[in-house]
C-alpha cells in the first residue's frame, strides 16, 4: 500500500514536470468538492463525489499560490512516507510555513489554509489522508472484548480500566487479533460512554462500545466501518434526540458532504439508529427531561427532511416532523431522569431486544 502511495505522488510530480518541459502551463487536476458535485449513491447508500473536476494552474494569479501549496503538501507527504514517520496536520502546517523570498508573503498563513490543501491532494490522487501519513488529534474511545495489534503492541480493549482505548487518527494499519462481540454500540457523547463503561454494559451485552465525543473523527469512522465490514458486526448508533444527533448518525452511515470523496472507505451504510428518538421521549416518559428546541434546531431539522437518505424512510420523516411540530429535543442523559441505571439496564436492552431501530 505504501509503495502505491509513493507512486501516486511521484506521478503527480512527473505530470507537472512534463508540463514544464513541454512549455505548457503546469496544472493539477482536482475533482470539485462543492455540494454541486456531491451525489447520493442510492445503491451504496453513500455520498460520493461526482466527476466534475477543475484544473489548478501555475500561470494564473488566482491559482498560483494554491498550486504551490498543493505541491508542497505532496512533497511533505512523500518525505513522511520515505522516512516511515507520521506527522499531525498541525505539524505539517508549522513545517511548511515560511516566508517566500523577496516578499513578506508566507507559504501558509494559518492552519486553516493548509488543511483544505490536504483534502485537495486526497481527491486529486485518490488516497486517504491517513495513507499520506498525516494524522489528526485522537478523538473517540473504545472498549470491548477485542485484542488488537498496533505498531507491534498487543492491546486488549477489555483491560484498560476506566479509560478505554483512545482511537488514533490512523487505524488502517491496526490488526484485529481477537474480536468477541455481537454488535457495536456507538455513543455520541463521552459522558454516555463513561456511564455505560462503568455499568459494564459491553461485558453484560457482549458488544464493543465506542464513544465518538461529538462528530466522529475519520479514525473512529474507519474503525466502525472495519468492525462492521471485517467482522460482520451490526452497528447501532445512540445519539441525542436532536438534529445534530441525527446528522452524526447520518455521517457514520452515509458520509459527510465535505468528505464525500472518502465515504466509500469510512462510512457504514448498514448502521442503524437506536435512539434517542423523539417518540422515545413520549414512550419512556421523558417529557419532563426534554428541552425546548431552538430556532436553529428547527431550521436544521427542516434541512434534514430534504436529505435523500432521510427522505426514503417514512419513520425518519415522522421523527423529524415530530421534532419540528412539538418543538422539543432531548439529550441521552435525559434517561437519567428515570434513574442512573435506567439507560444501561432498561432502555438500551429493551431497544436492542425489540430491534427497535431506525434505518
Amino acid at each position, binding site marked *: 500500500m505504501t509503495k502505491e502511495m509513493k507512486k501516486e505522488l511521484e506521478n503527480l510530480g512527473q505530470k507537472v514536470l512534463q508540463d514544464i518541459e513541454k512549455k505548457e502551463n503546469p496544472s493539477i487536476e482536482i475533482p470539485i468538492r462543492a455540494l454541486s458535485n456531491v451525489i447520493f449513491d442510492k445503491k451504496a447508500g453513500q455520498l460520493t463525489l461526482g466527476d*466534475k473536476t477543475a484544473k489548478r494552474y501555475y500561470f494564473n*494569479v*488566482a491559482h498560483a499560490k494554491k498550486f504551490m501549496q498543493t*505541491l*508542497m503538501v505532496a512533497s511533505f507527504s512523500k518525505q513522511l512516507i520515505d522516512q516511515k514517520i507520521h506527522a499531525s496536520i498541525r505539524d505539517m502546517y508549522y513545517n511548511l510555513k515560511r516566508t517566500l523570498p523577496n516578499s513578506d508573503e508566507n507559504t501558509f498563513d494559518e492552519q486553516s489554509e493548509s488543511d483544505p490543501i490536504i483534502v485537495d491532494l486526497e481527491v486529486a490522487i485518490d488516497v486517504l489522508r491517513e495513507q499520506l501519513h498525516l494524522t489528526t488529534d485522537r478523538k473517540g474511545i473504545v472498549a470491548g472484548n477485542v485484542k488488537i495489534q498496533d505498531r507491534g503492541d498487543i492491546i486488549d480493549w477489555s483491560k484498560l480500566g476506566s479509560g478505554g482505548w483512545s482511537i488514533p487518527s490512523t487505524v488502517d494499519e491496526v490488526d484485529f487479533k481477537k474480536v468477541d462481540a455481537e454488535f457495536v454500540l456507538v455513543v455520541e457523547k463521552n459522558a454516555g460512554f463513561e456511564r455505560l463503561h462503568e455499568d459494564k454494559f459491553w461485558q453484560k451485552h457482549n458488544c464493543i462500545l465506542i464513544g465518538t465525543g461529538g462528530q466522529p473523527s475519520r479514525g473512529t469512522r474507519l474503525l466502525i466501518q472495519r468492525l462492521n465490514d471485517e467482522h460482520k458486526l451490526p452497528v447501532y448508533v445512540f445519539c441525542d434526540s436532536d438534529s445534530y444527533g441525527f446528522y452524526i448518525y447520518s455521517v457514520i452511515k452515509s458520509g459527510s458532504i465535505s468528505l464525500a470523496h472518502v465515504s466509500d472507505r469510512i462510512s457504514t451504510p448498514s448502521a442503524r439508529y437506536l435512539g434517542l428518538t423523539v417518540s422515545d421521549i413520549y414512550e419512556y416518559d421523558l417529557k419532563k427531561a426534554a428541552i425546548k428546541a431552538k430556532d436553529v434546531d428547527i431550521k436544521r431539522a427542516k434541512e434534514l427532511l430534504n436529505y435523500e437518505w432521510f427522505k426514503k424512510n417514512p419513520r425518519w420523516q415522522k421523527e423529524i416532523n415530530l421534532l419540528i411540530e412539538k418543538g422539543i429535543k432531548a439529550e441521552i442523559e435525559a434517561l437519567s431522569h428515570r434513574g442512573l441505571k435506567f439507560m444501561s439496564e432498561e432502555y438500551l436492552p429493551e431497544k436492542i431486544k425489540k430491534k427497535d431501530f431506525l434505518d
Partner: protein
Amino acid sequence: MSERKKAEDFAKEQKEISVSEFFEKNKHLLGFDNPTKSLLMAVKEAVDNSLDACEEAGILPDLVVKIKNVKEDIYIVSVSDNGPGIVKEQIPRIFGKLLYGSKFHRLKQSRGQQGIGISSVTLYSQLTTGVPTKVWSKVESKKKTHYCELHLDTTKNEPDVIKEEDIEKDILGEHGVKIDMEIHGRYRKTVEDYLKQTSISNPFAKIMYTAPDGTKTTFPRSLNELPKPSKTMRPHPHGMEFGILQRLLQKTSSRTLLSFLTNEFSSVGQQSAKEICKSAKLQDSMKPQDMERGDIEKLIKSMQTSKVQRPPTDCLSPIGEAELEKSLKKEYPSAEFITSIKREPEVYRGFPFLIEVGIVYGFQEGKKKDDDEKREDSIELIRFANRVPLLYQQSACALTDAVKGVDWRRYNMQQSGNNLPVGQMKLVIHICSVWVPFVSESKEAVASYPEIIKETKLALQDAGRKLASYLSGKRRVGEQKRRLQIFDRYSGEVASAIAILVGKPEKEVEKKLKSLIESRAHIKEDTPEEKEQGK
C-alpha cells in the same frame, strides 16, 4: 425747510473725470489690489512689453529682471531687454499716459492690448512711493542712451517729465530698454512662478532673474527661433458692433458701401459683399459716410448673419505642439509623461482664436508627500493668454470651467463631481487670439464665450486621450510585472517540491521552471478561471 439746490448749483460741482483719476481711485481694476499682487503686476507689465517689443522686432529676447528690497515693503523692480528700444519722443507717452499704445486699434495677437499696463505701474509707483519711474532706452549701437525720469499727471492723463538727458554710460549693449520702478509691495514666490511660466510659453526667451535675497535664477531658452510673425487682421463681419462699424464708416476712404465692405473687412469678397448689401436691403453704391442710424443697424444685422468665410488664421501665433512639449520637458525634467495638443483655429464673435493644451504627468517637486496627501491634491492648472501667464482669478476663468467640464475619470484620472481632477498632473492651457476677451482690465480671467469653452474642452479631451493611453499602458506593464513577480516568488518552492516528488536535483527543475517563466513574460492574460469539466 432747507433751501433747495438748483440745477446751476449742481453744475458747479460737476466736472470731467480723467481716466487717470478714475484709475487712481480704482487701482484694483488694473490688478493692484494688494501689495503682493502689485509687485507682480509691475514685473509682469514690464516683461510683457519687453517680449512684445523683441518679438515684433525679430530679436531673440534676453531679459534681466531684478527685484531689490529698499526698505520694509518698498521694492525697486528693474527690467531690461535687448529689444529695439524706444525713440525718445515716445518714451514719456508710453510710460506716462494711460490708454496710449500701438496695440489697441489693430487686430493682431500680442501680449498687451489696451495700452494701460506699464503706465499704470508708473501711476501706482507715484501713488505709493512718489519716486519717479526711470527709463533708459537705446535704439542704435551708435547713438547714446537716452535717460528719462517721469510721473503721470493724473488730472490731464499726460506724462510729467522730471528729467531727461542723453547719458554716456552704456548700460544697455547694442539696443534695448531698461525700466526701474520703485513701488510699495510684498515679495512672494509668485514672481518666480510667473517667470517660470513665462519661460514655458515663450521658449525662445531667456530670462535672468535676481530675487530680493540675491538668489539668481536663469530660465534658459529651449528654442533658438522666434515664432513666425503674426499678421494684423482686418475685422471680420461676424464680430461687428454698432459703435465700431459707425466709426469705420466715418473714417473710410472707400466711396461705396461695396468697396467699404471688401476693403475694410477680412473674408469679404465682391460676392459676399453684394450678398450683405442685398440682405440688408441697402444699395451697394451708397456712400459710407451718408449712412444713417437705421441703415447701420440693418447693415450690422446682415453682416452678423451673412455666410462669409472664416477669418484668416495667420494672425495667430501659437506656441506649437512640439515647441510646447520641448519647453515643458525643459521646465519639468523629472516628469514621467509630457504631451501637448494644438487645435485648429476657431472663431468667436468674428475673432479667430486657438487653443493649445499641455499635460505634465507624474513629477517630483519639493518634498515628497505621502500617498494620502497626494491623493487629495487637485492638479495644478497653468493658464496662458497670448503667452502671458494668468496667475489670478482661476475660478472665474472660462479655461478653468472647461477643465471642470471634462470627465477626467474617462482618462484614468480621479475627479469628484465637477471639480478639478485630482492627481500628479500639471495642465497647461494656452488661448491665443487677436483679441482675448478678459473678464476685467487686469487681464486675469478669460470671459466665458461658449465657443471658447467648447474648443478648450475638445483640446483637453484630445490631450486626455493621450494621457489615458499612457496611463493604461503603464498600468498594463505594471500588472504584467506584478504577475511575473508572483510566479517568480513561488518558483523556488514549486521547483523544490517537484524535485522531491520525482527524485531529481532541485537545481535542474528550477532552471527549467525559470526558463518557462521567462518565456511567458510577454503573455498578459491569465488562463481562463478554473473551469468545470466532466471526466
